[in-house]
């Protein structure tokens, strides 16, 4: 990559007793990149983020964040990063607007920014609602707003889309894209493989403290050389008919559907079209879920 690296992580490790929470993680994130860390519960995502943010000291290894070391606490670095912690951190009994105005003051930016970020995360109508009266998803969005109020260059979001309904999730994707378009670097963690595929320039798949794979999502999926599944309504075709198509590797029926697995979807689809059997047809290509399964031998469970 030709751009300068916003973040360079070199072989960081962190143990809690016998448990290796982070076990030798290295990566770089370019300026303006949208970088995702994916993995199941306890994979070490939060620990990795918090080491980069300077909240935790690694047992070994080094981190360079915007050319500086985040540990020990560096007050000149702090205004340039924005952090949304996994558990939201709010002042007692303050309204959404007051939370943001307080954080704005801590960073020395004008109180007017509070209104702007509320608008950005779609909480304008909840501005005067107290923190303890917000729904889970609203708290999540307020928490993200708090991370953005001072216009940081690098934004860390720890599971920003957890607890959001599908609509709010999609809205938040727009927000995250808008942030990236302003040239910010985003590092975020998620359990949603589909979401990472849509949003991220690159993803790191993490499990048990290690990074198993790291690439643009499309590359990871392509690298799998996994079969494409063509799914038809049950009864649209018999198993025997399906097996006669060129390039079919496997045919499988369950209560509702018939699934054809193939590495050459084009001729299979052409054959189906010829027979006029395209009704209710679905095509499922390999996803990050398959990548995870392939890497760990375990089914992905968020």
């Amino acid at each position, binding site marked *: 990559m030709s751009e300068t690296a916003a973040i360079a992580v070199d072989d960081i490790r962190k143990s809690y007793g016998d448990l290796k929470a982070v076990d030798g993680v290295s990566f770089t994130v370019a300026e303006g990149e949208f970088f995702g860390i994916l993995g199941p519960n306890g994979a070490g995502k939060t620990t990795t983020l918090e080491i980069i943010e300077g909240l935790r000291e690694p047992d070994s290894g080094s981190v360079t964040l915007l050319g500086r070391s985040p540990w020990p606490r560096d007050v000149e670095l702090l205004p340039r990063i924005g952090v949304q912690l996994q*558990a939201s951190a709010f002042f007692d009994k303050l309204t959404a607007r007051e939370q943001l105005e307080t954080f*704005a003051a801590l960073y020395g930016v004008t109180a007017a920014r509070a209104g702007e970020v509320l608008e950005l995360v779609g909480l304008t109508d909840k501005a005067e609602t107290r923190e303890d009266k917000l729904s889970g998803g609203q708290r999540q969005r307020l928490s993200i707003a708090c991370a953005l109020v001072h216009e940081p260059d690098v934004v860390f979001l720890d599971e920003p889309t957890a607890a959001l309904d599908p609509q709010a999730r999609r809205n938040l994707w727009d927000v995250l894209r808008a942030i990236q378009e302003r040239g910010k670097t985003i590092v975020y963690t998620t359990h949603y493989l589909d979401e990472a595929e849509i949003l991220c320039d690159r993803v790191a798949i993490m499990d048990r403290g290690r990074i198993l794979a790291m690439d643009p999502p499309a590359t990871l999926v392509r690298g799998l050389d996994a079969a494409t599944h063509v799914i038809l309504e049950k009864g649209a075709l018999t198993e025997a008919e399906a097996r006669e198509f060129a390039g079919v590797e496997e045919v499988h029926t369950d209560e509702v559907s018939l699934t054809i697995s193939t590495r050459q979807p084009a001729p299979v689809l052409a054959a189906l079209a010829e027979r006029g059997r395209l009704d209710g047809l679905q095509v499922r290509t390999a996803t990050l879920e398959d990548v995870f399964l392939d890497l760990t031998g375990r089914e992905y469970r968020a």
Partner: protein
Amino acid sequence: MSRPSAFKSLAAAAVKGYVRDKATLFFTFFFPLMFLLVFGLIFQDTGTDKIKLGVVGDGPVISALEKTGTVEFERFDSMDAAVTKVRDGDLPGLVAQNGDKVTVRYAQSDQTRAAMVQGLVGGVVDKVNVQVTGQAPRFSVDSTNVEDQSLKGIQYITPGILSWAVAASAVFGAALTLVTWRKKQVLRRLRLAPINASTVLSARVAVTIGVAVVQAVIFVGLALLPIFGLKLSGTWYLSIPVFLLGTVAFFAIGMLVGAFAKTEDAAVGAANIVVLPMAFLSGTFFPIDNAPGWLKAVSNVFPLRHMNDGMLNFLVRGKGAEALLLPCGVLLGFTVVVGFIASRVFSWED
């Protein structure tokens, strides 16, 4: 104003959290106020007691008696009616004046009061004699009230309840803020903001002092109402340094409690363990002067005892600036030592 400082905005956030929490408001203001009112009203009867006297007729001695302000008159038209009242024990005595003749009748059943009545009337008669004859008395007595009157009722209870209330709200406030902020990750979030720990700390101390000042204004203001009758001494303003140092000392104790406690419940329990015994053994509710010697000695280890004494000495006893040294020294020492330990034990997260 569009760019308030970190200090101001943190203080404002803490104040809002404070006033929006009804339970905190109750324990900061109304709860101690209830004690003040109850004790104030109880002591009002005994503390500002006046001797009741039956009065028959009129004359210079009667007027002079009335001017002493220590007696309350009940007037009668006839000697007989008044004597009956005294005999029935409704009045400790009576005074009658008819021309130059002054008559005193008293009930021997209440000897103390009887003596008081006789002494009082006798003294007044002497004074009037001197005035009328214009002859200088051969002996004169110089008597001034030293302090004991000031330890009666509301005079005693106001500094005590105020010190206790300030101590309790400083300890609980500091401990609970620290624990909740740690639990709710506010501390970690603050750590990520470009501010100094001292800004956060001083903003919180400022709020504690502000709350304490509001407590003082309310409590003393109420006690000064005629119904309670608090009289401040001429050196009341010397209580200000004691008050401020005491508040900060208890804030430091609250920080120590909050540094140890992992949950709100633990913090409340620990704060109670710290504050309650101190309140009972430092002379908040009863004068420590009446306590046994060993208890007095023990109570000296409590900062509340010194805050209490300091407040009492200046608010009502009218002591001079030299009496500042001991309470201020002790409270400052507490602040430094406890604050230092708290900073060692402190952690950003659990």
